[in-house]
């Protein structure tokens, strides 16, 4: 009864789309790493490259979007296949935004011009490293359709949020102690904020992976609002 139906074209296109998403993921990953590394080195030239290189990430996103639309139009995917298409369209938007955060960090580096860093970067590279590790595993979970892994990854967002709060409080003390550091401290707060947002985007990606598996949109973040409420309580104590 169950004869195998030819759906090679659809399978091939879906696999190609997975590959493309992974390629875009590595482009974004490289941009984030380089943005933080060049900030550490205060390398304006490298920052400029990242800033203008973001265009390639945007183009990649539109390229994948077009391929997705073509697959939808020509193959009429249904059920899981259709949810994969919807998830890809969402995930590439999240990746593009993460690319924008790298671009934002590069821009801060450019804005800082020849001013030295207000403090050596320790927690900020750690935030980038954690966020990117989450991202890499999330994209692996996506192509492997591993909803279980996707459910667990967002829990690590707490650690990134914790680091962000730590960076924020530390820089606040710098600013209070010496108002002359306000500009330079603020720059780093923006950098940390961009990285904190990055791991939020990874959580969104994980939600889409669960959606592909179950057909239901599940909020996986452990309420950012709650986190920031606690944070504000803490800093206003």
């Amino acid at each position, binding site marked *: 009864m169950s004869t195998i139906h030819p759906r090679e074209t659809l399978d091939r296109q879906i696999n190609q789309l997975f590959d493309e998403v992974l390629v875009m993921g590595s482009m974004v990953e490289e941009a984030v790493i380089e943005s933080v590394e060049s900030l550490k080195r205060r390398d304006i030239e490298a920052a400029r490259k990242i800033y203008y290189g973001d265009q390639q990430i945007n183009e990649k996103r539109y390229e994948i979007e077009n391929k997705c639309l073509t697959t939808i139009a020509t193959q*009429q995917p249904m059920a899981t296949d259709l949810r994969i298409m919807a998830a890809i369209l969402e995930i590439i938007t999240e990746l593009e935004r993460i690319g924008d955060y790298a671009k934002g960090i590069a821009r801060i580096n450019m804005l800082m011009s020849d001013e030295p860093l207000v403090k050596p970067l320790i927690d900020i590279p750690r935030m980038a490293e954690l966020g990117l590790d989450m991202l890499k595993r999330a994209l692996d979970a996506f192509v492997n359709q591993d909803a279980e892994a996707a459910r667990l990854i967002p829990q690590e967002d707490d650690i990134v949020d914790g680091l962000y709060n730590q960076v924020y409080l530390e820089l606040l003390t710098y600013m209070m102690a010496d108002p002359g550091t306000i500009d330079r401290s603020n720059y780093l707060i923006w950098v940390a904020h961009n990285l904190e947002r990055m791991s939020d985007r990874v959580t969104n990606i994980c939600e889409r992976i669960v959606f592909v598996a179950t*057909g239901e949109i599940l909020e996986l973040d452990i309420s950012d609002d709650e986190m920031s409420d606690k944070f504000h309580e803490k800093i206003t104590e």
Partner: protein
Amino acid sequence: MNEQNMISNLRQSNGKYAIESRHLNVFYGSFKAIEDVNLLIERQKITAIIGPSGCGKSTMLRSFNRMNELVPTAYAEGEVIFQGVNIYEEDIDPVEVRRRIGMVFQKPNPFPKSIYENVAWGARMNGYKGNMDELVEQSLKNAALWEEVYDKLDQSGLSLSGGQQQRLCIARAIAVRPDIILMDEPASALDPIATLKIEELMRDLSEKYTIIVVTHNMQQAARVSDFTAFFSMTPDRTGVLVEYGATNQIFTNPRDQRTEDYITGRFG
């Protein structure tokens, strides 16, 4: 009983459902074509029946107006409840059932008569005593064909294009004021534009009628229907109802793996 009373009785007897099968089995001789189908069809909605070839879709459709009986060895077990009664009861006249539950077939099959007569014939056979011109005009309007044929009503129905002929058959079906219209692959012989016209027409008709449609075209089922029933086969080729639900759920998130495999083209 006048028509208004009939309709009000219908609403009371079956609630929001127009027709319902209960533990329905249909046989062709010793071959069981469908087994134990329980299906509730909502009133004034479009329900699509999909599934692989030979899964009993058309048998299921034809069991709703006893059309299977035209096959000599066919018989049904179980019940089909319409207006609170089982249409398979001995004292039920199948001709009356088919008047209330009309059918449109895969290939347009107008009579070799004028366009006017194609529409008027069924109503006349049923003893319609009202204004026939009005009935013909209204039926053709409801079938979205009037504008194309009003000035050539005396021409043969066979002179029309395939899509127009199919709409003529729909006009013929609604001229006898049915409650339910069964459609067996109504657009499979038509080009894409004529197909879309039939689909739009089905949407319009569902405001007044309950429509059950069998289609091989899953995109058509997805486009046009409110509910979808997926049939499959047991290893001995008996058709079974696998999953039934809102069309958007069936096509985006089917609950049964067999439905998923079929609509994603993995088997069928």
